[in-house]
C-alpha cells in the first residue's frame, strides 16, 4: 500500500529529474547554437489534467529584457530557502550550467553579455504559441492568469487596460485573479469584469461596508476537464488598500482570510471537487505559509513576488508553482487525478525565448492593433544609457537610482523616494531609451511626483514601516514589494531586527552629515497612496532628466549597508 504522500514524493523526484534534465539538455543544446522551439516545448503528457499558468505580465505585450534579482533575502523560516536564493547558488541548486539559457533566464549575473547572445524574452504572441502547443496535446487544458495583467505600460495606461483585455481574450483564459487591476479604479474594474468571457475570481475580495464576499467576484469556479471535477479558487492580492491607494476602490476589502479560504476548500470538496487549485496573488512566502494552514488545496499557482522556479515547492501535500513575471515564462503542470485525489504531477517552467519561439500570427496581429495608434509616441528615443538599467532586487536597482536622480534634480530635493515595486524590464548598455522604456518602469494611475518636507524622525518612521513590510519574519505581515528606493540619503539596515530597530546611520549624502530627527528635509517622491497628491507625472520628470543628460551614466550605489542577511 502506497500512501498519497509517497506518491507525491516519488512523483516529486520524477518531476525533479524531469525538470533538471529538461534544463540541462537545453543548456548543452544552446551551447551548440541549437536551441529550438521543439525542445522548449517538449513535454511528455502526464496524467489526465493540464494547467497552464501565466502571472504578473504587467502589460508587457512585446518581448523584453528582464534581469532577475541579485539581492532577494528571506527572513524567519524562509531564510536561505527558495525563492531567496540567487545567482550561482540558484544555478547549483537546480543543476543549471553557467552561461546556459537557464542561467540567463533565471539568474542575474553576466546579464548584459548573455542578453546579447540569447535575446529578449516574453511577448504574448510567443506565449500564445506555447499555449496553443499545450492545447494541441491537451485540448481541455486550463489557462489561469494570476493577475497584474492590466497594468504596466504606455498603451495599458492610455487605454485603461483595454489593450491587455483584448490580447488576453485572444489567449482565451479560463480564470483570473487580481492586484494592480484595481488601480484602474473600481468603476473601470467592474466595467471590464462585467464583460470578461472568463471567470474573475477572488475568495478574499469582500464588500468593505458589509464585510462579506463581494458580489462582483466569485470565490471559485468549477471546471470539468479530463473527466475530473476541478475547483479553481481565486486569491487576490491581500493588501491592496494598504500597498496601493485604497481610495481608488473604496467598495472593496481584501486580506488573506485563510479561514474563509478553508471554508471555500471545504465547500468545493463537499460539492465533489476532485482537484482543488488556488490561483493566487499572495506572493510566494505567503502562499507557502497558507499551504500549511489551509488543508485540502492540491496546487497553488503563485504570483505577486515575481519569482520563477524550475520546480514546484512541496508543502505537506500541496505543490506551490511560481511562474515568474513580465511574460518571461509559462508554467505547464500536468496532474494525475484519480479516485478523487491528486496522485502525481509533472511540471515544466517554459522560458519564452523570443528568438526561438515563433510568434502566433493571430495574436501578433492583435498586439500590433493595440500599439498602432501609439507607435510614434512609444518609439521616440529620449536618450541613451551607458550602463545596464534594471530594477529587481531588495534595495536598489539602476533604474530606480536614475529615477531618484531625476527627482532630486528636476524637483530640487535633498532626498528622493521611489517605490519598491518589482515590475519594470531592463535596458542594456548602449541601448536607446525610448518613451516606452520609461513608461514600462513608471506607468501607473497615481504617478504624481510630489515635493514635500519631512522631518528626519518621520523619514525614519517611513523607512522602518516599509522595511517591516518586507522583513517581518511572519510572511502574513509582508506585502511582497521590495524596500523603498532612496536617493540622496544612505542608511544601514539590519534585517534581523524588529520594526523600529532595523534602520540606523541615516546620512544625507550631499553633506555626509547624519540625518537630524528634528530638521525638515525637502523630499521628492512618487506613487503616494494618499488622495490629492500633487505634482507632475513621474514619466515626465524622468523623460526631462534623460533628455537633458543625453546619455545617462550608471554608477554603483553603495549607500545602503545591509547586515543580518
Amino acid at each position: 500500500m502506497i500512501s498519497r504522500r509517497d506518491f507525491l514524493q516519488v512523483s516529486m523526484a520524477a518531476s525533479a529529474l524531469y525538470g533538471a534534465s529538461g534544463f540541462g539538455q537545453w543548456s548543452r543544446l544552446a551551447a551548440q547554437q541549437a536551441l529550438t522551439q521543439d525542445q522548449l516545448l517538449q513535454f511528455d503528457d502526464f496524467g489526465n489534467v493540464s494547467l497552464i499558468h501565466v502571472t504578473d505580465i504587467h502589460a508587457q505585450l512585446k518581448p523584453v529584457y528582464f534581469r532577475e534579482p541579485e539581492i532577494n533575502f528571506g527572513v524567519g523560516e524562509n531564510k536561505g530557502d527558495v525563492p531567496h536564493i540567487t545567482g550561482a547558488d540558484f544555478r547549483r541548486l537546480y543543476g543549471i550550467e553557467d552561461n546556459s539559457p537557464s542561467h540567463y533566464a533565471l539568474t542575474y549575473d553576466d546579464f548584459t553579455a548573455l542578453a546579447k547572445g540569447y535575446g529578449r524574452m516574453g511577448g504574448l504572441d510567443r506565449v500564445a504559441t506555447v499555449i496553443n502547443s499545450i492545447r494541441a496535446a491537451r485540448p481541455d487544458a486550463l489557462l489561469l492568469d494570476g493577475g497584474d495583467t492590466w497594468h504596466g505600460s504606455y498603451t495599458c495606461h492610455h487605454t485603461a487596460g483595454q489593450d491587455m483585455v483584448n490580447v488576453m481574450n485572444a489567449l482565451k483564459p479560463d480564470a483570473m485573479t487580481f492586484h494592480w487591476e484595481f488601480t484602474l479604479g473600481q468603476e473601470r474594474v467592474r466595467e471590464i469584469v462585467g464583460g470578461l468571457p472568463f471567470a474573475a475570481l477572488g475568495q478574499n475580495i469582500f464588500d468593505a461596508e458589509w464585510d462579506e464576499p463581494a458580489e462582483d467576484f466569485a470565490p471559485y469556479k468549477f471546471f470539468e476537464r479530463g473527466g475530473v471535477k476541478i475547483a479553481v479558487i481565486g486569491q487576490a492580492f491581500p493588501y491592496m488598500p494598504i500597498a496601493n491607494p485604497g481610495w481608488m476602490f473604496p467598495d472593496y476589502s481584501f486580506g488573506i482570510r485563510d479561514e474563509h479560504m478553508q471554508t471555500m476548500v471545504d465547500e468545493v470538496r463537499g460539492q465533489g471537487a476532485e482537484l482543488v487549485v488556488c490561483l493566487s496573488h499572495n506572493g510566494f512566502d505567503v502562499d507557502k505559509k497558507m499551504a500549511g494552514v489551509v488543508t485540502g488545496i492540491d496546487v497553488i499557482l503563485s504570483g505577486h513576488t515575481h519569482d520563477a522556479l524550475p520546480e514546484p515547492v512541496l508543502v505537506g501535500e500541496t505543490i506551490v508553482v511560481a511562474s515568474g513575471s513580465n511574460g518571461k515564462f509559462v508554467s505547464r503542470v500536468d496532474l494525475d487525478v484519480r479516485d478523487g485525489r491528486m496522485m502525481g504531477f509533472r511540471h515544466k517552467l517554459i522560458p519564452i525565448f523570443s528568438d526561438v519561439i515563433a510568434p502566433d500570427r493571430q495574436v501578433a496581429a492583435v498586439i500590433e492593433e493595440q500599439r498602432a495608434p501609439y507607435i510614434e509616441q512609444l518609439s521616440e528615443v529620449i536618450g541613451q544609457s551607458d550602463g545596464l538599467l534594471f530594477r529587481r532586487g531588495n534595495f536598489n536597482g539602476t533604474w530606480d537610482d536614475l529615477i531618484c536622480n531625476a527627482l532630486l534634480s528636476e524637483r530640487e530635493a535633498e532626498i528622493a523616494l521611489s517605490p519598491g515595486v518589482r515590475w519594470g524590464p531592463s535596458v542594456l548598455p548602449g541601448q536607446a531609451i525610448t518613451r516606452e522604456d520609461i513608461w514600462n518602469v513608471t506607468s501607473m494611475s497615481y504617478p504624481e511626483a510630489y515635493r514635500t518636507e519631512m522631518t528626519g524622525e518621520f523619514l525614519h518612521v517611513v523607512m522602518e514601516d516599509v522595511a517591516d513590510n518586507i522583513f517581518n519574519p511572519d510572511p502574513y505581515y509582508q506585502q511582497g514589494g521590495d524596500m523603498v528606493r532612496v536617493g540622496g540619503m544612505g542608511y544601514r539596515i539590519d534585517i534581523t531586527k524588529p520594526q523600529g530597530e532595523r534602520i540606523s546611520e541615516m546620512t544625507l549624502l550631499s553633506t555626509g552629515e547624519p540625518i537630524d530627527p528634528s530638521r525638515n528635509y525637502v523630499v521628492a517622491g512618487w506613487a503616494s497612496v494618499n488622495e490629492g497628491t500633487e505634482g507632475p507625472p513621474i514619466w515626465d520628470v524622468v523623460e526631462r532628466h534623460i533628455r537633458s543628460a543625453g546619455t545617462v551614466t550608471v554608477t554603483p550605489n553603495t549607500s545602503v549597508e545591509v547586515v543580518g542577511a
Partner: protein
Amino acid sequence: MNLTRRETLAAGGAALLATVLPMPSFASVEDLVAEFTGGAEMKSEGLELIAPEIAENGNTVPIEVSAPGATSIMVLATGNPTPPVATFNFGPLAADQAASTRIRLAKTQEVVAIAKLGDGSFARAAQTVKVTIGGCGG
C-alpha cells in the same frame, strides 16, 4: 436557508448583548484579564478570533470572535490607551456564541479575546494586527 450577514443584520436578528465596559483607563491588561478570569488558567482551544493581519484602516478594523458554548467573551486592544473593547454576553437562548464588531486601533498591537466557556473554564486567543502607513506593493 442561506442567510448572508447583510440579510441577518437587515433582519435585526442578532440575539446577543454587547456591553462596552466603563473601565477606568488606568487598569492594565493584566488586571482586566485577572478580573475576568479570577486568575484561572486559560487554554488555547475553544475560542476563535478572526482579525486582519494588517489593518486596511486602523480606525475601523473588523474582528470576529466565536466560542461554542461560551457565556461571555471579552475583547481587549492591548495597545490602545483604553484597552477594553467589548464584552459579549450570551444568554441561554443565543443561537450561537459568536459576535463581530469593528474596533479602532491606535497602532500596531495584539488584540486579545478571552472566553468564559460553558463549563466555567477560560480560553484565550490573540492576534497581532499591524497598523501601517502604507506604501508600495510590487
